[in-house]
C-alpha cells in the first residue's frame, strides 16, 4: 500500500498506510498524550486523552490513537477544541486521584504528572472528597496495587488478555466504582505479571521489590542483556550507590518487544546482599589475590580426570574462551559440567531468528514447555497466533499454557516418543499446505527424549514443509559455551578437586572432593576449607552471551567492578598464568577481538551485534 501524505500542526509528513495519528505525530516530534494507548496493545480509545481535530472528518474531536491517517488529512492538535478537551480529561482524571506524589514511586517518571504539566490546567475546578479504596493491595509478593491512583486505562488487563493469555487480572464493578482486581483475590502467578508495572502510566502498579527505594533521578541505568535464560532479552538495569536497585524492560523488537519475564525482572536482590564476598579467602582466612590464585592453581594442577570443573549457565563467551585454553592445556582431561544446559547438540548451521516467528504461518513446538524454558519466546508465539493468525501445533506430554487457545492442536505424546510424533506431522492437515513459512521449535523434554533422534526428525520435517528450526537451548550462554567447546556435562562423581565457577553444583559437591576452589559471590555452606575467590555478578561483569538464536550480545553492566573485586576474565587470565599458560590480554576487548577473528572451533561464526545505545 502506498505511503500517506498528511499535515499535522502545519508539518507535512509522509508515513506508511495504516499508521495511527498518534504514531504519525511522534515522527515530527509532536506529543499527543495518551494513557490507554500503548504501541504494543490494540488501541481502544478509552481514556479520551488523545482527542484531536482533523479534517476531513466529523465536527467533533476524535481519538488520535484509534484513527489511522488518510491521504491529505489535516490534523490539529492545538486547536482550542483539542487543547480544551485534553485539559478537561486530565482534570477529570485528577478529580479522584490522590495527592500521593511525595510518597508515590512513580513520581519523576509519571506520565500523569508530565502530561498535567504540559497539557493540563494549573488548577482544578473540581473540588470535594475523593473516592477511596483500601490500599495498597498486594497483587503478589512482587506487585502492589493502589486503586485510588488507578486511572482505569485498562493497559494491565488488556496486556494480560492480549499478550500473556492469562485471565488472572480483571476489572470489577462498573462506572466510577470500577477497580482492578486479581481473580478471586488470589495472588498473581503468571511469570509475565511484572510487565504491568512498566505498562502502568501512574503509580497504581508498583514493584514491591523496589518500593520506596529511590527516585528515578537518583539512579543511573544501562541497557544490557538479561542473564537468566537463553533468550537474551534486553533489559534496563538501574543502579544507585553501587547497588542494583531495579530491572525494567528495554524494548528490542528483534527479541523481546519490550517484555521481560519475572525472573529477569525480580531476581536481582542477591547482587545487593550484604553477605556478598569481597575479598579472596583461603580456608576462611582473608588472603591476597595472588596468594589465593596460587592456591587454586596448586590445588587443581595436573589432576587430569580427577579434576571436576563446574560451569554456570551464564558463563560469558570470554570466560568460556579462556576456559577452553585451560582445558586444552594445563587442565586437560578434567571433567566439565555446565549447569542448566539442555541436551541439544551444537547446531549444524544457522538457526531460526526469534523475529521470524512473526511471519510463520504454522508454529510447531516440540518437547518443551516454552513458558518455563524460554518465556519471552512464548509471548512471541502467542502474538503470532492471536494477532497474525498463525496456527499452532504442540507436541508435549502435559498441558501447556498455549492450550488456552482452543485452536491449538496439542498432541500429547508418551514421554520419549516425541520424535515419532514429529515424523507423523509431515502429513498433518495443517502442514500439507501451510501457505508460508513454518517455525519448528524443539527442546529436549528435559532429558526425556532421545535428542539426536528428535533433532533429526525436526530437521527432516523442516525440509519437507519448508520450515526453519529453532533448537531451544536453555542455559543463558549455552550456545556460546557450545561454540567454545566447554558445554559438557560429564559426571563429576569421583573427582577429588573441584573448580566451581559460579554457584555450587546443583547436585551438591561430590563426596570424593578434597579440594574446592570456588569463584562465587555469596558464602556457601561446606566451603569452610575452600579457596574462595569473590565473584562479580551479572550487574558488574563485562562480557557477552550468545543467545538461543546464535546472536552475540554484549553486557553493559550498570555497576563497575570495584576493587578488591576482579572480573571473571581477569581472574581466569591470572589463573592461566599461574598454571603456566602464556596469556597477555590488556583488557577484555583483546579477548573479544580474538574470539571474533579466530573461533576456537569451526563453528558458524557468531556475529557480534550491538543492540541499542548504551544509555537509553
Amino acid at each position, binding site marked *: 500500500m502506498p505511503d500517506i501524505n498528511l499535515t499535522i500542526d502545519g508539518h507535512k509528513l509522509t508515513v506508511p498506510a495504516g499508521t495511527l495519528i498518534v504514531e504519525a505525530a511522534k515522527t515530527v516530534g509532536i506529543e499527543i498524550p495518551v494513557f490507554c494507548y500503548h504501541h504494543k496493545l490494540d488501541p481502544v*480509545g*478509552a*481514556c479520551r486523552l488523545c482527542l484531536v481535530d482533523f479534517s476531513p472528518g466529523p465536527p*467533533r474531536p476524535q481519538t488520535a490513537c484509534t484513527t489511522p491517517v488518510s491521504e491529505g488529512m489535516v490534523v490539529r492538535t492545538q486547536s482550542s477544541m483539542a487543547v480544551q*478537551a485534553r485539559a*478537561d480529561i486530565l482534570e477529570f482524571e485528577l478529580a479522584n486521584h490522590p495527592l500521593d506524589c511525595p510518597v508515590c514511586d512513580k513520581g519523576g517518571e509519571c506520565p500523569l504528572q508530565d502530561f498535567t504539566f504540559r497539557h493540563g490546567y494549573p488548577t482544578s475546578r473540581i473540588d*470535594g472528597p475523593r473516592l477511596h479504596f483500601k490500599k495498597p493491595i498486594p497483587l503478589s509478593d512482587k506487585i502492589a496495587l493502589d486503586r485510588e491512583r488507578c486511572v482505569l486505562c485498562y493497559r494491565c488487563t488488556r496486556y494480560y488478555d492480549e499478550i500473556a493469555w492469562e485471565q488472572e487480572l480483571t476489572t470489577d464493578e462498573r*462506572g*466510577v466504582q*470500577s477497580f482492578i482486581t486479581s481473580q478471586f483475590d488470589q495472588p498473581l502467578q503468571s511469570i509475565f505479571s511484572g510487565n504491568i508495572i512498566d505498562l502502568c502510566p501512574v503509580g497504581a502498579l508498583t514493584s514491591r521489590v523496589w518500593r520506596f527505594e529511590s527516585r528515578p533521578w537518583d539512579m543511573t541505568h544501562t541497557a544490557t542483556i538479561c542473564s537468566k535464560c537463553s533468550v537474551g532479552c534486553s533489559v534496563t538495569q538501574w543502579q544507585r550507590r553501587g547497588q542494583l536497585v531495579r530491572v525494567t524492560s528495554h524494548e528490542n523488537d528483534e527479541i523481546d518487544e519490550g517484555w521481560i519475564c519475572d525472573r529477569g525482572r525480580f531476581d536481582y536482590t542477591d547482587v545487593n546482599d550484604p553477605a556478598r564476598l569481597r575479598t579472596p579467602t583461603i580456608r576462611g582466612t582473608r588472603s591476597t589475590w595472588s596468594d589465593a590464585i596460587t592456591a587454586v592453581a596448586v590445588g587443581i594442577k595436573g589432576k587430569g580426570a580427577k579434576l571436576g570443573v563446574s560451569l554456570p549457565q551464564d558463563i560469558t563467551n570470554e570466560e568460556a574462551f579462556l576456559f577452553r585454553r585451560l582445558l586444552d592445556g594445563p587442565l586437560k582431561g578434567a571433567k566439565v559440567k555446565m549447569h542448566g544446559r539442555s541436551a541439544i547438540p551444537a547446531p549444524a548451521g544457522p538457526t531460526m531468528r526469534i523475529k521470524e516467528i512473526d511471519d510463520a504461518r504454522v508454529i510447531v513446538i516440540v518437547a518443551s514447555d516454552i513458558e518455563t524454558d524460554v518465556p519471552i519466546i512464548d509471548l512471541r508465539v502467542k502474538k503470532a497466533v492471536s494477532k497474525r493468525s498463525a496456527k499452532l501445533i504442540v507436541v508435549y506430554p502435559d498441558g501447556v499454557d498455549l492450550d488456552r487457545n482452543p485452536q491449538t492442536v496439542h498432541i500429547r505424546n508418551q514421554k520419549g516418543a516425541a520424535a515419532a510424533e514429529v515424523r507423523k506431522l509431515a502429513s498433518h492437515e495443517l502442514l500439507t499446505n501451510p501457505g508460508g513459512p513454518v517455525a519448528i521449535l524443539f527442546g529436549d523434554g528435559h532429558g526425556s527424549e532421545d535428542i539426536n533422534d528428535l533433532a533429526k526428525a525436526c530437521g527432516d520435517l523442516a525440509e519437507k514443509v519448508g520450515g526453519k528450526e529453532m533448537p531451544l537451548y536453555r542455559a543463558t550462554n549455552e550456545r556460546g559455551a557450545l561454540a567454545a567447546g566447554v558445554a559438557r556435562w560429564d559426571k563429576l562423581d569421583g573427582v577429588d578437586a573441584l573448580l566451581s565457577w559460579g554457584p555450587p553444583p546443583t547436585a551438591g559437591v561430590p563426596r570424593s572432593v578434597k579440594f574446592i576452589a570456588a569463584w562465587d559471590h555469596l558464602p556457601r555452606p561446606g566451603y569452610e576449607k575452600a579457596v574462595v575467590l569473590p565473584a562479580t555478578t551479572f550487574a558488574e561483569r563485562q562480557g557477552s552471551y550468545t543467545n538461543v538464536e546464535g546472536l552475540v550480545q554484549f553486557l553493559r553492566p550498570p555497576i563497575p567492578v570495584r576493587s578488591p573485586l576482579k572480573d571473571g576474565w581477569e581472574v581466569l587470565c591470572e589463573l592461566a598464568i599461574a598454571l603456566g599458560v602464556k596469556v597477555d590480554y590488556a583488557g577484555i576487548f583483546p579477548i573479544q577481538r580474538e574470539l571474533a577473528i579466530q573461533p576456537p572451533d569451526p563453528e558458524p561464526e557468531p556475529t557480534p551485534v550491538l543492540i541499542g545505545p548504551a544509555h537509553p
Partner: protein
Amino acid sequence: MPELRGSHGDSPTNVLTRWFGTPDLHTLDVYESKAGGYAALRKALLDMAPADITNEVKTSGLRGRGGAGFATGTKWSFINRDSPGPKYVVINADESEPGTSKDRYILENSPHMLVEGILIAAYAVGANQAWVYIRGEYDEPYRMLSAAIEEARAKGYVGPKPMGKDFPLDIRLYRGHGAYICGEETALLESLEGKRAQPRSRPPFPAVKGAWGRPTLLNNVETLVTVPWIINHGGAAYAKFGTDKSPGTRLMSVSGNVNKPGVYEVELGQTFRHVIVDLAGGIAGGHDLKVFWPGGSSAPVLPASMLDTKTDMESLAAARSMGGSGGVIVMDDQHCIVRAAYRLLKFYARESCGKCTPCRIGGDWAVRTYERILANEGSQVEIDTLLRVSDGLQNGRCLCGLGDSAGWVIDSTFRHFREEYEDHALRHECNVGKVATSA
C-alpha cells in the same frame, strides 16, 4: 393476556398495532390466520431477490426506532451479502431507556411479528444466524418470544430450509444481566460475546466488524417488526405516512403524570399535544404540564410551552431535542426539575460502564454536585461545576452516547428552568407548587 394499555385495532395509522388485542395473537395459528402473518416472509423468501427486499426497505424511508434514527435500508445495504464467511443479525431487545416500554408491548402482544421481521432481514443481508439480545428483566416477553420461535421452528419457518427455501435461518436468544449500557450496540455485542459490556471504538462499525468480528446487522425490535408490513404493502405505501424525512408511524410509550399512560402508535409529524393530551388523556389530577422528555430520558427536555412541537425527527432536532426511543415522560408542575435531573444523573452515573474518563468521573461528580445543591449547600460554584461537567460530557468527548445523554439532562433542564436551579443553588429554596406554570 396482559391488559392492553395502548393502541390496538382498526385505525388508519395502526400499522404495527392493528391486530393487537386479538385473542391468542401470540400463537402462530392466530397470527397467521387472523393477522395475515408470515405472508411477508413467504413473499420475501420465495418471490423476491434479497437486493429487492433491501430496496423496498430503503424506499419506505424507515428509520431505526431504537434511538439513533439511522436509515434502516441504508444500514442493511452496508452488509455485503456476497462476502465470504458468516454474517449475523442481532436484535437489540435490551430496551433500557427510561420511559420506554414499546418493545415489551410488541413482544407481549405479537412476538411472531418480530420473528417474521428477523427472518426477512436475515435473508436480505445473507445472515444464517440471528441473535436476540433481550434484557434479563423481561421475563414474560422472553418466554413468549421463546415459545414463538419454537412454534416457528416446528412449522418449518425457522431451520435448515425455511418454507422450503435453501437458506438456513436460525434465531437464538441471549438474556442480558441488567445493564443499561448493553443497549449501546457495541457494548451489546461485547456482552453477547461473553465479555465485559463496554462499548467499542467506532469505526469499525458492526456492519464491518460486529459480533465475533463478523459483518453484523444490528436493529431495534420495533424497526424489524415494521418490515413485514413494508413487504406486504410496499415501501412506497409506508412512506405515505408521516413526513418526508421521517416517514411512517412509531410507538410512543407515554408515562408520568398522565391520565392514560400506555404505548400509542403515532403517525410521525403529529404534535406532542396530540400524544399527551389526545391519546394519553392529558395531565392527571387537575395539574398543569411543566416539562416532558420526548424520546426517553436521554432526549433533551421540552417545556410545556413547546407542547406543539411535532414528533418527527427534524422538528425535534430543530427544537434542540431528539426522537430517541419515543419514550415520552410527562411531568407536571408539582415536581421539582432539579430533583428530577438529579434522579436521572444518578441513573447515568450508576449505569456508566466506566471505560471512558469523562462519563465515569463526570457523571459521579454531577451527582455529588446535585446532592450539595439539594442539601442547600450550593452556590454559583456548584452551578458552574454542573455546566463544566455537562460540557465535558458532550461533543465527542465520550466513547458512546451515554455520556452525551447525561450531559443533555443537565444542559436542557438548566436551559429551560434556570430559575429553579438558581432558586436551589443560590437562594436555597424550592418554589415548585408555589409558582404557577401554564401549559
